[in-house]
């Protein structure tokens, strides 16, 4: 298991939105998290790389083991956690003042691990991994925001890959994209699965079925059911899961 979550609770002020979740995320697989809005799935995801605590008033407790180390241990540096566990956000957020090329190496440059000599290789490798190279190789100097929404999101994936993480968290990465751009991202995720462990939060149940080996169903801050994707959608064990995937609520 790449990540093992034990008894995770997360709150905004007095409002507890993740209420004691145990969940294991296998290496080099995609785990999908589905559930209605407000079920705590995004908050859960943001606890996995210590982004949750950046929101003023946000707290959490419990254990999140990355390999064998609890990322909430006192001596762990949250900044380093985020270098191992990367994140792709709901809306593509390339840095507007930077070119395509600079966006890719932004993570290295921000953290002063940037080497001008290696930059072209890093840029090409990350953009190839993100299946964006062929579309942008002749305009690397143009602003990242000049790309289409789907390309921007793949640029953000390339940017996350360039810092060489082990795990990639994706928070509804296609919810701002059209179906064609979505299909390209899904294709890309299936490629990346060979090298990275991924967790994807999605509203799109079709997407979970297309990309994820395993799917977890969250409801009101609790994990209702976790199973391999075919089982969860084919023969859900819990009636609430069955109701949700049949579209009877949510």
């Amino acid at each position, binding site marked *: 298991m790449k990540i093992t979550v034990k008894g995770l609770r997360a709150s905004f002020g007095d409002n507890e939105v993740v209420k004691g979740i145990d969940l294991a995320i296998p290496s080099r697989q995609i785990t999908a998290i589905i559930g209605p809005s407000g079920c705590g799935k995004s908050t859960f995801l943001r606890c996995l790389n210590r982004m949750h605590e950046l929101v003023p008033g946000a707290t959490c407790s419990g254990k999140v083991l990355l390999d064998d180390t609890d990322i909430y241990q006192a001596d762990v540096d949250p900044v380093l956690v*985020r270098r191992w566990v*990367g994140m792709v*956000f709901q*809306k593509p957020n390339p*840095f*507007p003042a930077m070119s395509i090329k600079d966006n890719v190496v*932004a993570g290295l440059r921000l953290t002063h691990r940037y080497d001008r000599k290696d930059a072209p290789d890093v840029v090409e490798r990350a953009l190839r991994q993100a299946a964006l190279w062929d579309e942008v190789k002749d305009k690397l100097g143009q602003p990242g925001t000049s790309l289409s929404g789907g390309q921007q999101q793949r640029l953000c994936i390339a*940017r*996350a890959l360039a*810092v060489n993480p082990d795990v990639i968290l994706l928070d509804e990465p296609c919810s701002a994209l059209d179906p064609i751009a979505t299909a390209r991202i899904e294709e890309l995720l299936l490629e990346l699965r060979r090298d990275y462990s991924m967790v994807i939060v999605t509203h799109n149940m079709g997407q979970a079925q297309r990309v994820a080996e395993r799917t977890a169903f969250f409801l009101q801050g609790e994990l209702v059911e976790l199973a391999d994707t075919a089982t969860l959608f084919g023969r859900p064990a819990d009636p609430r899961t069955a109701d949700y995937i049949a579209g009877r609520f949510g």
Partner: protein
Amino acid sequence: MRRPIDLTSRRDGILAERLFPWLCRLGVALPLAMLGWLLLRVFVDGVGRIDGSFLTDAPSQLNAKVGGLGPALMGSLWLIVLTSAVALPIGIGAAIYLEEYDRRSRLASLVELAISNLAGVPSIVYGMLGLGLFVHTMALGETVLAGALTLALLILPIVITAAREALRTVKDALREAALGLGATRWQTTRQVVLPMALPGILTGAILAISRAIGETAPLVVVGAVAFIMYGPDGVDSPYTALPMQIFQWTSNPKREFLDNAAAGILVLMATLLILNGFAIWLRNRTQARRT
């Protein structure tokens, strides 16, 4: 029964619709006319006095036709530089702390309350504070440094507020992007947030400084001198400033000195205009880069 469709004879709201734009135009025209009138009067009276030596020479107390506002202009420049050097780092630093490091904490809201109150305190009160704190307690005496520190206190709330507004225009998504890549708070602030907010911060800073240039009351209190032959040659020099010099000329019993005051006003206005124009240029550049 079909009703005949009437598309031509509305009777409601006609007067207000006609009247309101004219009221608005009047509202725009009045302050413009007053400013224009002031500028014209000052220009007619003062333009004859302005030449190279008026900008550089020391004032004469006997003859209004000779001398100039050299020491006051130099004093104002010294004040601008020193005030900026003190108020900008502190003000921008405070804004960064409040927006980037300690958002929505109790301390932040306390500071916010203090700032919005300080912004409304009359400038003469800042003068009293400067007199007590800088001139006496810190024993700086009646020096250009004490004056600059007092002006820095005066504009600090404006600088902080403007810088916070500028920082707030930077989207949180960009902060999260940088932090999510494993950047520290400072790396994020320094390399992502500040470059985006900088033109806005500078615009606010320049507007704050142009406020400081025009201030007279606090300088009177902290001991800017009314008559001096030389500009400052160090932070511990006695000094005067443009508005002080203008005030001194207008209070001279000889009528000819009023022309000097008008010329001084022209110089002060030109300085303000240059600074404000620069601020507007900066702001436009920001907007261009955001699209």
